[in-house]
C-alpha cells in the first residue's frame, strides 16, 4: 500500500482509525488486527476477522512506528486490533517530554 503523510486509514476488523504522520521509505503492508486497512473513504471489506495474535489494541492519541520503514501513524480512534506491518507489530512511541511553551 502506498502511504503518504496525511493519509487516513481505518481498520476492517475493529474501530481503529489512524492518520499517517511519517511516510514510509517504501510501500508497506499495513494491517490492523491482522487484516488489511482501508482508506477512510472506502467501505470496509466484509468478512475479515480479528486475528487473536494482533489484538493488543490501539489507543487514542498514541503514535505507533515501524522502525524498518520509518512509517509512523497517529491513532485518531482506538480499537481492539493492533497495528502491524505484515506480521511485525508497530511499536508505541513513548512521549518525549518536551517542556510546554504555549
Amino acid at each position, binding site marked *: 500500500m502506498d502511504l503518504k503523510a496525511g493519509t487516513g486509514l481505518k481498520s476492517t476488523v475493529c474501530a481503529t482509525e489512524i492518520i499517517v504522520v511519517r511516510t514510509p521509505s517504501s510501500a508497506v503492508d499495513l494491517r490492523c488486527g491482522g487484516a488489511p486497512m482501508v482508506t477512510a473513504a472506502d467501505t470496509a471489506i466484509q468478512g475479515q476477522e480479528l486475528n487473536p495474535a494482533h489484538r493488543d489494541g490501539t489507543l487514542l*492519541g498514541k503514535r505507533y512506528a515501524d522502525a524498518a520503514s520509518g512509517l509512523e501513524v497517529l491513532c485518531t480512534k482506538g480499537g481492539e486490533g493492533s497495528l502491524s506491518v505484515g506480521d511485525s507489530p508497530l511499536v508505541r512511541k513513548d512521549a518525549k517530554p518536551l*517542556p510546554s511553551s504555549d
Partner: protein
Amino acid sequence: MHLFTLLDMAAAGFPDRVGFGSRTDGLTYADLATKARKAATWIAGQKVERVVLIDENSPAVPVLLYGSALAGLPYAPLNYRLATDQLRSVLARTAPAVAVVDAPVVDRLGPVDGITFVTREEFLHQVDEAAEAADGPLDPEAAAIWLFTSGTTGEPKAAVLRHRHLASYVIGSVEFMGATDDQAALVSVPPYHVAGTSAVTSSVYAGRRVVYLPAFGPETWVDTVRDERISQAMVVPTMLGRVLDVLESTGERLPHLRNLAYGGGRMPVPVIERALRMLPHVEFVNAYGLTETSSTIAVLGHEDHKLALASEDPAVRARLGSVGRPLPTVEIEIRDPDGTPVPVDTAGEIWVRGEQVAGEYLGRKASTADGWFPTNDGGRLDRDGFLFLEGRLDDIIVRGAENLSPGEIEDTLLAHPSVADAGAVGVPDTEWGEAVAAVVVLNAGASATKEELQDWVRGHLRSSKTPEHVVFADSLPYNDMGKLLRRKLKEQLVTEAGA
C-alpha cells in the same frame, strides 16, 4: 493532519473535560466540537472566502478557529490595536470575508468593501441556532490561519499557515491529553499573535483548560493566576518584569503555578535570574519561534536554566541568555549571507526546516525547494547546540567591517545599577559607516553620565562595542508584544541629530 481532527480526538477522548473558561461553567471539548460544527454551517452560509476576528480573547476564539477549519476557510485574527486606516487596509485584503468583531469596531472602521461585520454576541447567538455541519473531507493542504506580521517597515505581510504545519507542530510537541484535569493555562497574549493561536491548538490537544485574560495588567494577571489556580502561563519579557514587581510588593508567591514560558522578545538575564530566585517552585521555559514556523522551534527548559545558573563555566552560564536547543522535530542551521552554513560559535542568519515550518506569505513562498526557511534573525549555535539570538538582521549594527549585536550592548547597559532600560541602534557615521548609539532610561532617582556608561560598556565588552552616542530618555518605544522598536528609535535619533 488537520486541526479539526485534533479537536475531534479531544472531544472523543475527554468529552466532559472543560477546555475553556472557568472550571464550573466553562466550555467542554464536546461543547466546543458541537459549537465548531455549528459555526462551520454558519460560515458556509455567509458565502465568503475568509473568516476574520477583530476582538480580544474570548471563548468565541476557539469556536471561530475550529469552525473555520471545518468549513475549509482560513481564519484571520487581526490586530485590533492597529490605527483605523491600517486596520481597514489589512481587512480589505481578506475580502470577501465575514468579520466577527467587538461591537465598537463596526463604528470605528465604517463600511469596508466585501466585508460583512457581525458582533461577537450576534455570532455566538447565530451559531447556537445553526445546524451541525456533517463530517466532510478535511484537506491538510488547506490554509488554516492567516496571521499578519506587525509591518513596522511597511505593508504588513500575511503569513499563511496550513493545517499540516499547525497540526505537525501540535502532535510533534504535545502529548495527547498529557495534562491532568487540574491544570490550567492563563493566556494573555492576543488572539492575532501566533502564541495566541498555538495556545488554543496545543491546549486542546494536551487537555489543558485555557483561561483568558483579555487585557494584560500585572495585578490582574497575578490575581487571576491565584484565583483560577493557574498551573502554567506564557508571558513576554516586559510582562514578567512587571509581574515580579507586583509579587515583590504583595508577597504573593502563586503556589499553584508550575510552569512559566517566556518568549516573544529578548529577556534580560537579570530579570530571569530574579524570577528564578523569587519563584523557586516554578519551572521556566524560554521559547523561540516565529509566526512563519507555527510557533516554537527552540526551547530552553527548566533543567537548562538551573544548570546554567549553577555553572562555573562561563560558556554554560551564558546559556541563561540563550533560547535553548531546537525541538527534536526541527533542524536549525546558521548560514552566511551566501547561504553557506558557518562553523560553531559563528554568527549568521538562522535557517530552519521542519514539518511545522510554513515559510509562506500570501502569494509568495519564502522557503527553498528543499524546505529551508531563512528567518531574517541573526544568531549563533554553541558547541552543544544552544541557540543564541542576535536580533533581526536588519537591526545588526555594522561598524567598520564588524557586525555588532544591539542586544549584547543593551544587556550590558541594563546590568549597570542606574539603568532601567536601554536600546542600541546603528546611526550613520562618516568614519565607520555606522556608529553605535544608545538610548538609556535611568532608574528613578539614579544618575549616570555618558562617560560613565561608556566606560562600563568598554570594561565589559570591547571598545568597538562602546556607544559613541548616549542619549537619555524617559521611555523606549515598544510594540504591544514587548518588542523594542529599534527602527523607531533609530528614526528618532537621526531626526534629532539632523534637527
